């Protein structure tokens, strides 16, 4: 990471491109775009050192709207382009913008391998649980039973749980936020940017045209606090508009409890974002069976792929000396071709 010589204080406006934004009016993507543009001036990178890479889908129009470098790449392949770029040019801030279709369907394989390598990049997955660009077919995160244009009788598939997948693939930063809660979203993106290694941010995003009711009360400012737990490291898991509910462990099983005579704050789970075991447990709690958790689920300090790679190169050079191609050519048996 580099924080060297930043001459000008950038503002949100510096990241707004001259392109007309072509998402449907009311789409959750607008809010994510605005929050990323707001976050970038403070992440310690020069504008020309920031790159946005996307695949295919509504969310993947993102790079056009950023006044940074960008690649609108191939369906599902954004993490691979980003990996190549981030490894060979480690002084960049690289962002993958993807969706539940792009990132988890055809890109599912690349997603797993990107998460496990800990290359220094940020993956933001807009999850609207539908294919928006092709106008409303079920996606890998669509709920079982979801009626869509390609599942008229209801989807019979089991959805992917993105944070659980990121976690089990070995991601070192796993978080979640939602489009409608701009403040929380901005804070989460800033934390992701600050993390060294691969950061994963799932954003619950509202496709107002093809799946408008997916997130229900989560999208409603007046109701949402009764349905969301904001995770904070070292704090008990209290939630509710009146801070009167919480999550406790009953044996191994988390359960929602009402705070009052029977249970107090002391009975609740205290969030520890360094605990993988806790993260696994939390990741399995799915909304609406449980309140949706938002924030940093898990974070781990670990050398990045590039650091380990450079270490290997240095070790090789220390033990064997700096390589010489000419010597290498002549180090094996040679034939003279007449």
């Amino acid at each position, binding site marked *: 990471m580099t924080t060297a010589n930043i001459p000008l204080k950038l503002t949100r406006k510096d990241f707004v491109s001259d392109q007309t934004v072509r998402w449907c009016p009311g789409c959750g993507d607008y809010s994510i775009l605005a929050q990323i543009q707001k976050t970038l001036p403070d992440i310690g990178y020069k504008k020309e050192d920031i790159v946005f890479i996307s695949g295919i889908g509504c969310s993947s129009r993102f790079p056009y709207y950023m006044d940074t470098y960008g690649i609108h790449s191939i369906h599902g392949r954004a993490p691979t382009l980003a990996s190549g770029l981030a490894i060979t040019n480690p002084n960049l801030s690289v962002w993958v913008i993807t969706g539940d279709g792009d990132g988890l369907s055809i890109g*599912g394989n690349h997603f797993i391998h990107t998460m496990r390598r800990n290359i220094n990049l940020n993956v933001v997955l807009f999850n609207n649980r539908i294919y928006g660009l092709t106008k409303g077919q079920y996606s890998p995160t669509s709920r079982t039973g979801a009626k869509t244009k390609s599942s008229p009788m209801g989807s019979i598939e089991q959805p992917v749980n993105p944070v659980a997948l990121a976690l089990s693939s070995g991601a070192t930063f796993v978080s979640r936020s939602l489009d409608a809660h701009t403040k929380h979203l901005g804070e989460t993106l800033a934390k992701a940017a600050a993390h060294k290694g691969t950061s994963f941010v799932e954003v619950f995003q509202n496709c107002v045209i093809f799946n408008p009711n997916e997130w229900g009360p989560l999208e409603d400012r007046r109701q949402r606090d009764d349905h969301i737990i904001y995770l904070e490291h070292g704090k008990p898991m209290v939630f509710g508009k009146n801070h009167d509910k919480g999550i406790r462990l009953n044996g191994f099983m988390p359960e929602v409890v009402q705070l009052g005579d029977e249970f107090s704050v002391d009975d609740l789970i205290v969030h520890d974002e360094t605990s993988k075991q806790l993260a696994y447990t939390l990741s399995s709690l799915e909304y609406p069976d449980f309140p949706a958790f938002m924030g940093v689920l898990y974070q781990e300090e670990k050398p990045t792929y590039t650091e380990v790679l450079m270490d290997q190169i240095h070790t090789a050079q220390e033990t064997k000396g700096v390589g010489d191609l000419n010597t290498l050519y002549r180090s094996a048996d040679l034939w003279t071709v007449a």
Partner: protein
Amino acid sequence: MAKELLKGNVAIAEAAIRAGCQAYFGYPITPQTELLEHMSKRMPELGRTFLQAESEVAAVNMVYGAASAGVRVMTSSSSPGISLMQEGLSYIAGSEVPAVFVDVMRGGPGLGNIQPSQSDYNQVTKTAGHGDYRPIVLAPSTIQEAIDLMVLSFDLAEKYRTIVFMVLDGAIGQMMEPAELPPMRELPTERPSWALTGKGNRDKNIVTSIRLGAQPLADFNDILQEKLAVIEKNELRYDELYTDDAELVIVAYGTAARVAHTAVKHLREENIPVGLFRPITLWPFPYQQLGELADRVSTFLSVEMNAGQMIHDVRESVGRQAEIEFLGRPGGIIPLPEEIEEKVRDMWRQKNLAAQIN
């Protein structure tokens, strides 16, 4: 059955169902998604299989699996999706299992756009994956023809245990036209003898594309080539319009042929002796028939919705003596009849001028 107003993609899906398609695996991509959506609605209610795969790569291999079990199976996609299927296509060809593909072509290369195009001519007729084989490629130019060829696709696939492609472009996929659907066919009650159905008491069947050792693979390729030769002989399809007395012939297929048809009618009103030769099978390509036409006609115009792909086959058909010109619109643009008319008038003038000078 009476004619009804049908949308291309939906008509094709329904025709496939009536032809007895037992399983469909696909992935949404514009401009063919309505085909998949129709399948998602109809297949379950008929007790048949529909699955929206996680990608085109997955879809083609699901097709491979079902085809190996002797199930009548298909997928559909559009150009970038077909590119993704190349690996599976080659394995299917190497395993000699029947499978039907619909490609509603769009502009390329790369993500390109979603406009009507004939960008996949080379991709489907020349290679469709690695190795020496060719799929049968059918190219309808109306919705009725698409319906009829869809049914034929399954028959040909099974007859030759081969891949059959039906290629059209987004214009035919998206337009509406009066057409008549075929009656619903009975599904086969038995699986083919070569299929993987559980050995039981019979000898075991093996479906594979692995043939280790040079000679076994060479022998297999010989068999494949023999089969392709039979297909070339038996399955040629093409259409001719006003070619009897034509002195100048347009070669075009699909939507380009529809536009050319309009142009030919206008030009005939101007007494320009122009005809239209329309390949319906892009592979096998009607080399010989077009070549025979070149015995009488010395001037050809290849009209395509790309930068010139079929033109090489036209050249191979008509030989070096004939003059061939090209009118093409890559990038997802449909040429206008006026453009073709202008081009033909110009060619006709040149031809007469040359005749005067000689």
